[in-house]
């Protein structure tokens, strides 16, 4: 301990060198841990975003792509699925439940998910947790439900109005000012992309888009008459049109399943649908069946196994980053080695003094090792501090970009392992100047050759 104190005092006397060396180590430790931390956190964050859904079905595309846009709202669907195809699979005897979603719109960067109100019943995240409403309830015609983060950021409550834009960018050319949506409910925070999303009915989305000529008409008609306060009237307005009658039905009866028996679709095409099966083990057969559907090219994925596929892709990247941060650490340690070796030349006098007081070459050796280790440990501590500082400042950005909540959790075993590696590497590095000083002190004795 006495020697460690001496080492610390000596380091303090060379403060600027010590601080620079320490920062080099701290930054490399931060990188080394940061790579591990970010990949762990995103991994668990991603894994928590969806559970209880056996299959996700979309137009034919890469499975990772399908997962990313349907669950994480990252990227865009390549193609739509027709409503007829959806109906075909929704009515399959193996299917316990199914929920369609249509994507592509946004409000100030927050994705709009058009779906059916049953979404809130069937969607599960983390350990089979279902969505709950912080306030309000599921949407009906002309209404929207918003995730917790959207509500907070855009300052929305039940009863507020929301204008939905066309396209997914934060800046949008087509704002449907004329169709403000009424907020019917605000969801409880989940720490998943659900917090970042706005949920509306399929029919409402279609009206806004005016996808077909028919719908375009809808659009204009409702422009003039379909004020949001009069949601009930909207149905009557549409009565004149082909599918208007059914919407009317829906409103009268509040029967969500009405769509399923509907010959006239609420929207011509959807982006994807979530499926829950009667028997989970049949998912693999069902997946094959859907993938080989002749009427329309489809891709069905099991979310869990596609997540694994995603990790395989990312883990190569993660490994590359780890290797890079390993080299950064090596550079930091070599920098420390260079500084300490350079300092030895100026400190022969100090060594001679210590030897005259009774310090043996062994003590000099220990002194140099402790000095390097004090630097290494301080660098590690500062590095961990920087890591937490960064997570703290980056967490909101990660949440808004990926919908994943990064927790400020303690140091994990994998991180302790990496810290241990830094410690051991620092120790081995410390032996070099220590050995040099040991040799010097043996040959110099008490002579103060500078």
């Amino acid at each position, binding site marked *: 301990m*006495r020697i460690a104190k001496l080492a610390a*005092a*000596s380091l*303090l*006397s060379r403060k600027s060198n010590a601080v620079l060396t320490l920062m080099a180590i701290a930054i490399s430790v931060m990188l080394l841990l940061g790579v591990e931390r970010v990949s762990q956190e995103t991994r668990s964050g991603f894994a928590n975003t969806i559970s209880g859904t056996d299959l996700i079905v979309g137009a034919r595309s890469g499975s990772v792509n399908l997962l990313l846009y349907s669950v994480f709202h990252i990227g865009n669907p390549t193609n739509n699925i027709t409503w007829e195809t959806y109906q075909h699979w929704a009515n399959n005897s193996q299917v316990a439940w199914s929920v369609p979603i249509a994507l592509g719109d946004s409000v100030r960067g927050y994705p709009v998910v058009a779906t059916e109100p049953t979404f809130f019943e069937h969607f599960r995240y983390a350990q089979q947790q279902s969505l709950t409403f912080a306030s309000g309830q599921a949407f009906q015609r002309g209404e929207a439900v918003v995730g917790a983060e959207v509500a907070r950021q855009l300052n929305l409550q039940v009863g507020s109005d929301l204008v939905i834009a066309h396209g997914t960018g934060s800046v949008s050319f087509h704002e449907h000012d004329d169709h403000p949506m009424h907020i019917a409910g605000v969801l409880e925070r989940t720490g998943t992309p659900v917090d970042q999303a706005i949920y509306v009915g399929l029919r409402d989305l279609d009206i806004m888009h005016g996808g077909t000529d028919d719908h375009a008409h809808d659009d204009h008609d409702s422009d003039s008459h379909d004020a949001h306060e009069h949601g009930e009237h909207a149905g009557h307005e549409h009565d004149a049109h082909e599918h208007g009658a059914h919407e009317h039905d829906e409103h009268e009866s509040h029967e969500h399943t009405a769509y399923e028996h509907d010959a006239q679709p609420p929207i011509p095409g959807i982006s994807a649908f979530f499926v829950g099966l009667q028997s989970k083990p049949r998912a693999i057969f069902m997946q094959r069946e859907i993938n080989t559907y002749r009427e329309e090219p489809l891709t069905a994925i099991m979310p869990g196994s596609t997540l694994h596929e995603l990790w395989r892709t990312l883990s190569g990247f993660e490994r590359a980053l780890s290797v890079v941060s390993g080299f950064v650490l090596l550079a930091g340690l070599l920098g420390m080695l260079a500084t300490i070796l350079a300092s030895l030349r100026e400190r022969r*006098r*100090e060594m*001679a*003094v*210590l*030897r*005259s*007081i*009774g*310090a*043996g*070459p*062994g*003590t000099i050796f220990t002194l140099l090792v402790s000095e390097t280790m004090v630097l290494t440990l301080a660098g590690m501590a500062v590095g961990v501090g920087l890591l937490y500082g960064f997570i703290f400042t980056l967490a909101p950005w990660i949440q808004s970009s990926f919908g994943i909540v990064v927790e400020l959790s303690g140091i994990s075993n994998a991180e302790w392992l990496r810290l241990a590696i830094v410690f051991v590497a620092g120790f081995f590095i410390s032996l070099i100047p220590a050995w040099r000083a040991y040799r010097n002190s043996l*040959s110099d*004795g*008490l*002579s*103060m050759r500078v």
Partner: protein
Amino acid sequence: MATLCIRGQQIKFCWPRQSQPTIDIAELAIKSGERILLRGPSGSGKSTLLSLLAGVHAVQSGTLTVLDKDLSQLSQRKRDKFRADHIGYIFQQFNLLPYLSVIQNVLLAIDFSKSRGQRLNERNTSARAESERLLTRLGIASELWEKPAGNLSVGQQQRVAAARALIGAPELIIADEPTSALDTDARDTFLNLLNEECEQQNITLVFVTHDTTLSHHFDRIVELAQINQGTSIEGGEA
């Protein structure tokens, strides 16, 4: 024999990569409590002999007994401990660690030696109190005690070095030209104070200096050239 502090017989020491021994002394005897002035031309091996006495290096042949311990029989580690416990060493200059305070520099000697601390305990005084006493005695004002040692003048630093050598009453003090950086007045004061302390505590003093005017402070003068058969001497004499 017990009254002998240092006794060397047929001691030889040769630096690595030198063909001739720097030290080759047939007989060297210094009594306990004696104050010795060691003299010799530059390069004659004075500092080398001192490092043998202090146990920093070991003689390569012969026996060198200091305070009844045959240093040639001790391991490097034991010799280092022996030096910490029994020998105070003062250099020509730069004796202090500039980043420690004055008082910390003095206490450093206690840090490295338990028996110095024990000796202070036996005298019912603490390390702190004793270092304060010595510093005061050697004329270092108390305002300076907590200052970094690097801030002191050369003369003050040498007195602090003397305090560190003296603390815990080691039996032997070795000083290698400690006054050469001081002016004449300061040299005399320094030596007076050192001598007083040595006398009081019955400490043997081996002192190297080129300054002939200081001879009167010592009991005896040893001319290294007369006892050393090492080669450097012959070069020195030629």
